């Protein structure tokens, strides 16, 4: 409904602006979809469907009291993602910026969570900012953002010694109000923002049709497990005031000082309730039971601040020394009171029938401090060269205090951890007569891991070269990137690398025609020691990406006709082998100066190795009318 109102508003504005001699463009029509194969996978990856579409809309005009009003919209209608931007200005008085995005997110992956996790949600995001007295010494502003996410889904619930599919209905609403001011007094400028965010979600769950017997067909200790009904309602509200402030000052045009501070204090309150009937079991109370009632109240807090400063000193024109320090402190804490009633509970031997109530009062906390110190020398232009080098040191201290109920097996669930990373980062570029050659190198050295997947050594290298001929007749580019990271501790033995190479070439043999081709190659592999939980033996976890992408295409403009066409193929021979094929063509033809047609053809093909349950071949054809009065 909301989207329909917005689209209607756009069309009304379209009509209103028709008589005005202003830049204007509307492209609207219908898109057809021909889909073969897995609809679930197609919708999870691409999700472009049949229907009406405003492919493009732009207008710029003046109106009473507005020096400039510009509206841009694209892909509104059948989706899956549409956007609207409005900017309006009254010089010296106010400036309005509005952005609206709508997305349909669909997920039903056959090989993920036994294919049982599905959702079909719509997310609508709005950002509005209104600034007063732009370009004055003090520019107050107000802003509002919203982010609504809702829709049905299906999830699973591990309960009573089985997993049951549940129907899910989710409604999330996030609102943010903000107010503040930018300021500029002589060489000092900055901005302060005070915001208030409110997040509210309601999730209702009920047993899915046909899910009574759960995922596990067998009995537990001789007792079949089944559910007659499960209903749950979870409500969460989070209030988050935040403050964001920065100030900069110039000293004689050669030294710039920057100070910043941001603080947020999120306070979450949760209320949850659940009832279930059926035949269930619990190892926690060592009982079978036939009914379950639970209520939970919770409170969690996130208190985070970050502050620091930076100095930028111009040593000679285009050569700067930059140094700074940032500290971030994050404090997470939570408590919950969970009251559970197990109805008709009997021992695993079938004796001692009674209702059992358990009360769990839990508290947990995480404290994290991160200090970052950096110093850099940046020579932005020494003739055709630009060179930059930076040293950075990051230290993280973490203190994790889990509740005892979180700990399945005693071990390293909580405690104090510390990690220091020393980084050297350098890059150099040479640019002259259309030729650009660049190299970048980064080395990270850490003393300790916090997670097992943390590296101790990481090296990144990137080389780039491109050449563009005069008058843009020819352009070619090459990029090579390599990242290696590892942790050579004998019991982790983590080793990973990523290599990517790509090359592209563009040529314009005749006026109006431009040909392009590209080839890219990707190889990534990670390998580390793990412990198998089923038998506690050591093994290795290996993951690989090994892909090659080829793309070719052209654009052509002549008279009333324009064509943009491309075809691409990406083949991955890694751990999840697949082939992606993408073909695209867009042809526009101007029937008259003010009116024309656009034709779009897209084909996306996805083939996984092995059983073809997720493969699809989707062709979309769009026919759009273009209007440029």
């Amino acid at each position, binding site marked *: 409904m909301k989207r329909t109102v917005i689209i209607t508003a756009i069309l009304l504005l379209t009509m209103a602006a028709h008589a005005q001699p202003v830049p204007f463009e509307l492209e609207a029509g219908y898109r057809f979809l021909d889909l073969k194969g897995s609809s679930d996978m197609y919708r999870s990856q691409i999700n472009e469907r049949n229907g009406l579409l405003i492919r493009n809309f*732009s207008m710029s005009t003046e109106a009473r009291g507005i020096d400039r009003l510009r509206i841009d919209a694209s892909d509104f209608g059948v989706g899956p993602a549409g956007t609207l931007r409005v900017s309006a200005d009254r010089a010296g008085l106010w400036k309005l910026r509005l952005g609206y995005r709508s997305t349909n997110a669909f997920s039903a992956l056959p090989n993920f969570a*036994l294919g049982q996790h599905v959702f079909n949600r719509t997310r609508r995001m709005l950002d509005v900012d209104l600034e007063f007295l732009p370009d004055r010494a003090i520019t107050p502003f107000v802003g509002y953002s919203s982010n609504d996410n809702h829709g049905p889904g299906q999830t699973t619930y591990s309960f009573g010694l089985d997993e049951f599919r549940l129907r899910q209905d989710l409604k999330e609403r996030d609102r943010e109000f903000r107010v503040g001011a930018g300021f500029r007094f002589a060489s000092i400028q900055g901005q302060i923002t005070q915001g208030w965010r409110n997040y509210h979600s309601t999730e209702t769950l009920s047993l899915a049709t046909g899910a009574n017997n759960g995922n596990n067909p067998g009995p537990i200790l001789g007792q079949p497990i089944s559910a007659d009904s499960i209903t749950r309602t979870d409500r969460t509200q989070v209030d988050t005031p935040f403050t964001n402030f920065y100030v900069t000052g110039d000293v004689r045009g050669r030294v710039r000082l920057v100070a910043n501070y941001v603080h947020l204090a999120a306070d979450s309150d949760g209320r949850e309730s659940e009832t279930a009937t059926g035949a269930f079991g619990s190892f926690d109370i060592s009982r079978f039971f036939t009914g379950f009632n639970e209520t939970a109240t919770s409170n969690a807090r996130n208190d985070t601040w970050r502050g620091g400063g930076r100095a930028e000193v111009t040593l000679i024109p285009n050569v700067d020394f930059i140094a700074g320090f940032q500290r971030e402190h994050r404090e997470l804490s939570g408590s919950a009171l969970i009251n559970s009633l197990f109805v008709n509970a009997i021992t695993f031997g079938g004796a001692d029938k009674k209702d059992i109530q358990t009360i769990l009062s839990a508290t947990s906390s995480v404290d994290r401090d991160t200090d970052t110190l950096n110093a850099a020398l*940046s020579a932005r232009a020494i003739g055709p060269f630009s060179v930059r080098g*930076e040293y950075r040191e990051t230290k993280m201290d973490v203190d994790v205090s889990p509740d005892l109920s*979180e700990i399945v*097996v005693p071990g390293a669930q909580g405690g104090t951890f510390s990690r220091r990373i020393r980084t050297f980062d350098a890059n150099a570029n040479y640019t002259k007569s259309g030729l650009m050659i660049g190299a970048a190198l980064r080395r990270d050295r850490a003393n300790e891991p916090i997670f097992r997947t943390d590296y101790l050594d990481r090296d990144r290298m990137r080389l780039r070269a491109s050449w563009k001929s005069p008058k843009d007749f020819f352009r070619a580019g090459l990029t090579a990137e390599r990242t290696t990271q590892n942790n050579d501790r004998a019991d982790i033995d983590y080793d990973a690398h990523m290599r990517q190479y790509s090359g592209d070439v563009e040529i314009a043999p005749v006026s109006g025609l431009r040909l392009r081709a590209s080839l890219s190659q990707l190889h990534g592999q990670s390998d580390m020691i793990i*412990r198998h*939980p*089923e038998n506690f033996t050591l093994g290795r976890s290996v993951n690989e990406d090994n892909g090659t992408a080829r793309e070719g295409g052209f654009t052509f403009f002549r008279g009333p006709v324009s064509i943009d066409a491309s075809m691409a193929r990406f083949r991955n021979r890694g751990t999840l082998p697949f082939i*992606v094929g993408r073909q695209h063509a867009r042809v526009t033809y101007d029937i008259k100066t003010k009116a024309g047609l656009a034709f779009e053809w897209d084909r996306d093909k996805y083939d996984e190795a092995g059983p073809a349950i997720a493969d699809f071949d989707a062709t979309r054809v769009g026919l759009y009318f273009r209007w440029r009065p």
Partner: protein
Amino acid sequence: MKAFASNVHAIGKAKKDAIPSSLCESCHGPGREHIEGGGDKTKIFKPVGLEGSNKTCLTCHDTATDRVSRRGGMHANSASVNCLTCHSIHNSDAHSQHLLVTPQLTLCQNCHANQVASFRYQPYAHRLGRGGMECSSCHDPHGRPGRDSLRLTRAGEVPCLNCHSDKRGPYVFQHGALAVGECMTCHEPHGSANPKRLTRARVVQVCIECHSPTATRTLGSQPPSFHDTTNPRYQSCTTCHVAIHGSNRDPHLFK
């Protein structure tokens, strides 16, 4: 001239499509000789490259914040990348914001071809170019290098939370990967060969690589309770541990 009337630089200055010469001169310098020379292009300043950016763009746009720097940024005004590499006052792409010379994805691809390839070819990717999502949704092109180029929320959080606000928490039972680490501990931000843009092909791999007890003490390296990961039922840990980002109710993130 008429087209320039709708340019952002002409707001409040162009009247009925008439551009005052002072507006042109604010970037091109004094124009008397140029006019008297019958439009001689050699007699007027044409902003090009680093020098052009320094003398025109940065006279107004040389701002700095805790994230943005025109002196030390990855796209600092340098010999190789300057304002006029990406922006064009007179010949920008009609549908792009901020007077970009081409649509954003095409523009960024000139240098960041590998990253753009990841969005274009991987099956699980943020779909850029449609629906308002662009490279600059998450990165500030004028930001400082590395992580400092990320476009944080107004409350200073990672950009993922701009859209995925439900993952902000806070939760009573935090998943350490998120509370101490970040989204990228488990997810790839651009495009991935793996469902849900996970860093590994199978969910159990993502989990077990951290949750494996060995001699080195690391956060979360306690073993999970007995699970037969050779059984498909236990190869996707999130079938049961649904509340993997955090829970207010279940210590084991079941719900």
